[in-house]
């Protein structure tokens, strides 16, 4: 049974009525969700963010995007210096969402079998048995991913895109929902292996945590003075429920004009003179899905250009390769996306 078939079965068993009751058909023949259908997404998102807020100070926007990535069946690359709470965020997210969490600390001697699992010979049964690796979880934190060798990094490609792993000749589906959160330090590059473009393209978001403000840092000290608030977190959803929510987010209505706007933004990255490699169609898909999930999280059954703009930089920036001369002029990928956002016309009345 493939991962997709298994997820469909889970949906039908647990929430079979959702699929049939929420669809409507417009006069143009387009199917769309009832306005109240996304209420479960919003309710769980609010509870999740409230829980994360208890552990992470002032990082609600990052936590919201992590949830959006999970609902969009995407993966997140957290790029920032150590000590800003990347691991804490992943742990808090997994506890709040009732997901199984595993952490992989990448080093140059990490082998693919260390993350996927191995077939070992069972002397009692006289057969080869599969022992799963840490990838067989719902939420996997791959710490300092750029310290792993390209061979190990490539082992993650199949898991990220197909949600399955292949060990020897056996293909094993990963449990759903599955999200990979990778971290990398953008400063310390000695002894690292930069992620190839193919792998970068498979991350839905690249996020940066950023340093806390003066008040936030004081609040962190105060909150962690006596005890760690992480064990106090309680789950707000089950893993199976998240699969249903992912399916619900997929059905959020996208107006044709907004779809055109997404295409115009992505095509704009390919036409920029300072960009050597623009965003791929996978980026268009990611942008649409992320906007759909964000709309559902914020209580709407349809997406707005505001949703697209909000997620555009995290979705697109890491997929662009800016020409060297432009980089020397100080024009980075984020600036390219921001300029596009402030120049591509939004579909509004003339």
């Amino acid at each position, binding site marked *: 049974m493939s991962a997709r078939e298994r997820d469909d079965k889970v949906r039908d068993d647990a929430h079979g009525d959702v699929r049939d009751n929420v669809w409507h058909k417009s006069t143009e023949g387009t199917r769309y969700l009832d306005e109240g259908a996304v209420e479960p997404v919003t309710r769980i998102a609010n509870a999740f963010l409230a829980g994360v807020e208890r552990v992470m100070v002032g990082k609600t926007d990052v936590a919201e995007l992590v949830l959006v990535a999970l609902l969009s069946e995407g993966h997140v690359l957290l790029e920032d210096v150590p000590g800003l709470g990347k691991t804490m965020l992943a742990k808090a997210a997994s506890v709040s969402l009732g997901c199984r969490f595993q952490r992989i600390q990448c080093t140059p001697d990490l082998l693919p079998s260390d993350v996927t699992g191995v077939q070992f010979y069972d002397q009692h049964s006289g057969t080869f048995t599969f022992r799963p690796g840490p990838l067989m979880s719902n939420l996997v934190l791959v710490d300092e991913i750029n310290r792993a060798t390209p061979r190990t990094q490539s082992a993650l490609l199949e898991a990220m895109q197909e949600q399955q792993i292949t060990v020897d000749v056996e293909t094993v589906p990963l449990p759903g929902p599955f999200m990979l959160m990778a971290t990398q330090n953008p400063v310390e590059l000695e002894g690292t292996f930069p992620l190839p473009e193919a792998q970068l393209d498979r991350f839905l978001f690249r996020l940066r945590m950023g340093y806390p403000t003066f008040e936030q840092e004081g609040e962190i000290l105060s909150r962690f003075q006596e005890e760690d608030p992480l064990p106090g977190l309680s789950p707000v959803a089950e893993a199976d429920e998240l699969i249903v929510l992912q399916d619900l987010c997929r059905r959020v209505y996208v107006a044709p004009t*907004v779809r055109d706007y997404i295409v115009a933004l992505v095509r704009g990255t390919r036409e920029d003179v300072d960009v050597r490699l623009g965003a791929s169609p996978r980026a268009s898909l990611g942008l649409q899905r992320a906007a759909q999930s964000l709309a559902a999280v914020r209580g*709407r059954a349809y997406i707005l250009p505001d949703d697209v703009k*909000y997620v555009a930089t995290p979705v697109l920036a890491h997929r662009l390769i800016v020409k060297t001369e432009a980089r020397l002029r100080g024009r980075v990928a984020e600036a390219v996306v921001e300029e596009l956002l402030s120049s591509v*016309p939004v579909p509004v*009345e003339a």
Partner: protein
Amino acid sequence: MERVNGVGTMSAAQMRPDIEESGRAAPVAAAPASVVGTERVVLLVILMVMELMWLVVVFTVLNTTLSLGLDLRLLMGLLPASLGTCLVLGFWRPRRGGRLFSWAVAAAIGAAAVGGAVWAGSSTTPVGVLVGGAILWVAGMRLGWLEVRFPVVLGEFQFGLIVLLVALFVGRQLSVDLPAGVIVGIVFVVLGLLGLGLARSGVGSGGLSRGRWWLFLGAGVLAIVVVGLVVAALVTPDALRAVGRGFLWLWRQIDKLIAAVGGWFPEKSVSISDGTEWSTPGVAQEETVGGGVLPESVLRVVRIAFTVFVIMMASLTMYLLTTRAVGWARRRAKGSGSIKVERLHGAFGADVRAWLSRWWARIAQRVLWLRRSREADPTEATSVRDLYRHLLRWAAGRGCSRDAAQTPFEFQTVLVECCPEGQGEIDILTQAYVHTRYGPRVRRTDDIQALRVAWGVLRRIKPVGVRSVDTTQEET
């Protein structure tokens, strides 16, 4: 972070929590802070005196050359009166009949001026007082609507300086007696610098001594003066008359052409007098040409239309030239850090654009109303989108145009800054619009009725910051 669960109930700030909470860059440029309190009053007085000064010089030149017989002292008294009335009206904004009341006050002031002039035995004709009063009343209204802040004061200063220099130059060339011209110029510059320093300190960047903007300003003023001196050296009264003769020759050729077209009709020939009003002294005014049977009234209409056309083309050309020149200067100055650059034609251009937009909005509104009255049953979605179109035109008429890359919620943030009183109605209309435009379903009829009521309330609100967006976009 406050979160809202309901559909279509999120405000613009909630749609973009990054604006307030995470501190990430917002796509909408934040407008510079306005000056409030005592400083606002002082700046308004400074602006009014500056405007009064260049108006006095312009009126003096016009009075002498065109022999209007205006009593300048009497007319100048109307500007503070009209500004004061506009400010009072700005504080007390009647919801119903506010515009009518405003014009009634204007007429009362004009009537009082005429009465006072007659009573004082002034040589000014009542028509002259009324026309001058109307111009000054409009100037007062414009000042009353200004959002007083640094870029606006800078624009007013540059615009006034250019008008003043041009008027002084023309006055000198036409030998108009302007005994206090130099003093007026010096006082104007001093007042302008004072106002700029005050406005700059109001936005938190210190006084005149801080920042490098004054270097750029000084260079700009110096350039204006140098170019003015060069032009003054090159342009003599003879040269002006030569240009006048050139225009007159062109006008005669057109006149002959019109007469020739009239001559296609058989038999009768008429004598056409040259009725142009902008000819130069010393040049022959009358010429008789052969013509056809076109009546003189028709020819006069054609002449007027042609004159309007030429003036419009000349204005457009000058506008384009200044835009290109300033664009070049802005590109040159782009690497100058925190220097703020205001377009020289910004003040005049913003007024003209706002005025034209208002008229265009009115005409478009009438056309839409006629079209809607002919269509028996427009669909609901079209109505919501039409209302939003009205909102956009209404905002453009108040100098708050939507940027093409702005979403409705981003534009709502800007629009609320332009018109804080209409925040509730703007929010209702924007929410309804995004629901209709980007959502899958149209709205119900009772919702449309509620939106029409909101639109009716909004359109009666008096604007506050006429140039708020235009001046914001000028910063580099």
